């Protein structure tokens, strides 16, 4: 039953490409990419700046119309339509004039759910996932980690099957980041969402994911898909196992190659 579910394709990018018109001529931000992400999977995109990670996210979220290809959600064409996937940016984007509770219900509110009901749904989650006591605080009273929790819960409460997380922990210190990773995995385990995660941090990508997509620049493209077959739940100590280190070395090598190629081209 579970294996059957895991094989259902949730997100499918069908030859999606993006070319921007710039004053200097057309700029290919993303070479055609074809990817299938199974339901309930946790996948990560890693790659240098300008490899098209954010472009992919914007296209999947419907905020950017690709110049080629289609985005399929649950087998139906969803290209260029908004409000179908949860999208979280590195900046938490909490509204400073709203209390934490009213920030996390934003998605439901926009979808037209009555406020009372939306708050009723959000409160237990806030309490259960580390924001107890801060429900009625304003965002500026929260630490960086807490703010990211609130932003993530807002994405979760938007209640879409797919969540796109664009470097959500990029601005956090190492200690907080590590806590947040475990917290995210707990959340993912509880809700079974399909998560696409962008990061610069190779270790973070491997620790969290079922699959790591390595990308490269000029043009932005997918170079390799690396499966991470490490059993869950994962302890922090798995980062020291030969298996983990092997995957990390492979990722680093791919990123290095891409980096060198870019430098050679520039020279």
């Amino acid at each position, binding site marked *: 039953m579970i294996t059957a579910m895991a094989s259902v394709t949730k997100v499918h990018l069908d030859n999606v490409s993006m070319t921007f018109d710039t004053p200097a001529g057309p700029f290919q931000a993303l070479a055609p990419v074809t990817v299938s992400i199974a339901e309930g999977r946790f996948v990560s995109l890693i790659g240098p700046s300008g490899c098209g990670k954010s472009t992919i996210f914007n296209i999947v*979220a419907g905020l950017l119309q690709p110049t080629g290809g289609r985005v399929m959600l649950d087998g139906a064409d969803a290209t260029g339509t908004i409000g179908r996937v949860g999208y979280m940016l590195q900046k938490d984007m909490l509204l400073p004039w709203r209390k934490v509770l009213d920030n996390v219900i934003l998605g439901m509110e926009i979808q037209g759910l009555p406020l009372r009901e939306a708050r009723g749904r959000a409160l237990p989650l806030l309490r259960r996932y580390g924001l107890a006591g801060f429900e009625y605080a304003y965002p500026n009273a929260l630490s960086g980690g807490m703010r990211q929790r609130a932003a993530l819960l807002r994405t979760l409460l938007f209640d879409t099957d797919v969540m796109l997380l664009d470097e959500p922990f990029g601005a956090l210190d190492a200690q907080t980041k590590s806590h947040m990773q475990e917290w995210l995995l707990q959340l993912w385990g509880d809700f079974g969402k399909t998560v696409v995660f962008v990061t610069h941090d190779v270790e973070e990508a491997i620790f969290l994911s079922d699959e790591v997509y390595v990308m490269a620049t000029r043009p932005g493209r997918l170079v390799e898909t690396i499966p991470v077959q490490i059993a869950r739940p994962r302890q922090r100590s798995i980062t020291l196992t030969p298996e983990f280190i092997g995957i990390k070395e492979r990722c680093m090598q791919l990123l290095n190659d891409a980096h060198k190629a870019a430098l050679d081209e520039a020279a």
Partner: protein
Amino acid sequence: MTAQDTSRTGAALDLAPARPAHKARTYRRLPSQRDWPFWLIIAIQIGILAGGIALWQAAAVYGWIDGFFWSKPSDVYATLIKFFAAGDAWTDIGFTFQSTIYGFLLGTASGSLLGLSFWWSRNYAAVVQPYMICFHSLPKLALAPLVILVFGIGLASKVAIATALTIIVSALTTYAGVKALDPDQERLFYSLGASRMQVFRKLVVPFCLPWVISVLRVNIGLALTGAIVGEFIAAQHGLGRAILYAGSTYDIALVWVVALVLSTLAVVMYGAVSWLEYVLRKGIKQ
């Protein structure tokens, strides 16, 4: 020690010394200033005011200045009593107050709405922008006689001038707020499937409120100026008309009295708007 340092880093960079070699380095203390107690500041302020009035009185009495043109505090005080006893003092104050408040409200509200409206279309904003800048740089008071002709000598013309002075300041400031909006914040709203109206109501308006509020104090002053100028040109009531009347009849003491009343009115309204600003800011406190 120093020689070693030079040989290591200085040699490579060839750093010039930071001070002339023959001078010994001097070390300063961080400048500091001790705050006077609050009562002392108030006492000094009152002292300066009292001293100024006393000096003025003395100068007029001993003939250092021409008492006819400058009047003197004792005459001003006597005229003040008479002014309020005469009865139309409150009519004048009420008239000026009314035109100021109407102009302030109208100008601020429509200006803010105009500024916010630019969020809806970049093209529309680009088209309207030059007209706004032109109107802004125009010396609007120079058009006051025209406004009086169009709107008559009653309240409407004063309100119109006060509105003209405040509307563009509000619009430009609010538009600055619109431009300061983080595009990523808008993208977040759209990613949640928001309509433009939802983004406007839930994001743009609350985000721009601090900008709207920040011009309130400037606008109350401008609105008062507009109302007074309108009364200077043609009016049957108002403090501006009273000053003009006093001046043209060489009643210098009365000029001072009305100016004093006007300043009091300005201070009261400024205080009220500051309080309003405080309340509003607390309401949208981050």
